């Protein structure tokens, strides 16, 4: 019944590896997002994506790439992981053009790069 689900919940990996985090929403929303929350709890948007366009925050390194196989999924792929990538990553979704237009978040994925 979870509205926005992310897997895995925890991810521990070595520097230089490539990893993916999956996100699925069952709310029928048309827009999905990825956020990064660093150790100081700052939450910053990385990407937003709907069937029309992908918008990338200019500060996001091109080692990060979102991949959307369909409207309900937006996976985050990270190449050549670096120590600074350690953070909690949140997926979220919303429906554009709805009066409420609220973003619903997943439970987060804690990524630790060793």
């Amino acid at each position, binding site marked *: 019944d979870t509205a926005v689900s992310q897997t895995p919940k925890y991810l521990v990996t070595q520097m230089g590896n490539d990893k993916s985090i999956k996100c699925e929403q069952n709310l029928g929303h048309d827009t999905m*997002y990825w956020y990064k929350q660093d150790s100081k*709890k*700052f*939450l910053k948007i990385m990407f*937003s994506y709907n069937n029309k366009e992908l918008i990338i925050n200019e500060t996001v390194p091109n080692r990060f790439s979102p991949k959307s196989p369909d409207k309900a999924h937006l996976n985050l792929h990270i190449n050549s992981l670096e120590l600074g990538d350690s953070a909690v990553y*949140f997926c979220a979704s919303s429906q554009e053009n709805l009066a409420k237009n*609220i973003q619903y978040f*997943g439970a987060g994925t*804690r990524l630790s790069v060793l």
Partner: protein
Amino acid sequence: AQTVTQSQPEMSVQEAETVTLSCTYDTSESDYYLFWYKQPPSRQMILVIRQEAYKQQNATENRFSVNFQKAAKSFSLKISDSQLGDAAMYFCAYRRREKNNDMRFGAGTRLTVKP
């Protein structure tokens, strides 16, 4: 640029008492949304309350209410009758009405509830 400032890194309240969390924001826009999200230890980001800038009436959700002062660009959250389950990080967030992809969050306030 729009920024969101939460000036209280930590706050503490006695159970059953009332606490107010502060938030100010900077924008040149007139039409936008403001949000308070709660992040308990489980890490889930949970929407607490939402305010539309064009509405003068302060939003209320049960024990949670806001004091929205548009001219002052202030958006504080009041939690009445605090419960132990209210303990969490609280994030204030701003988004332009037309820019769904540009939600800005404050640094958060950690709320502790004492029994």
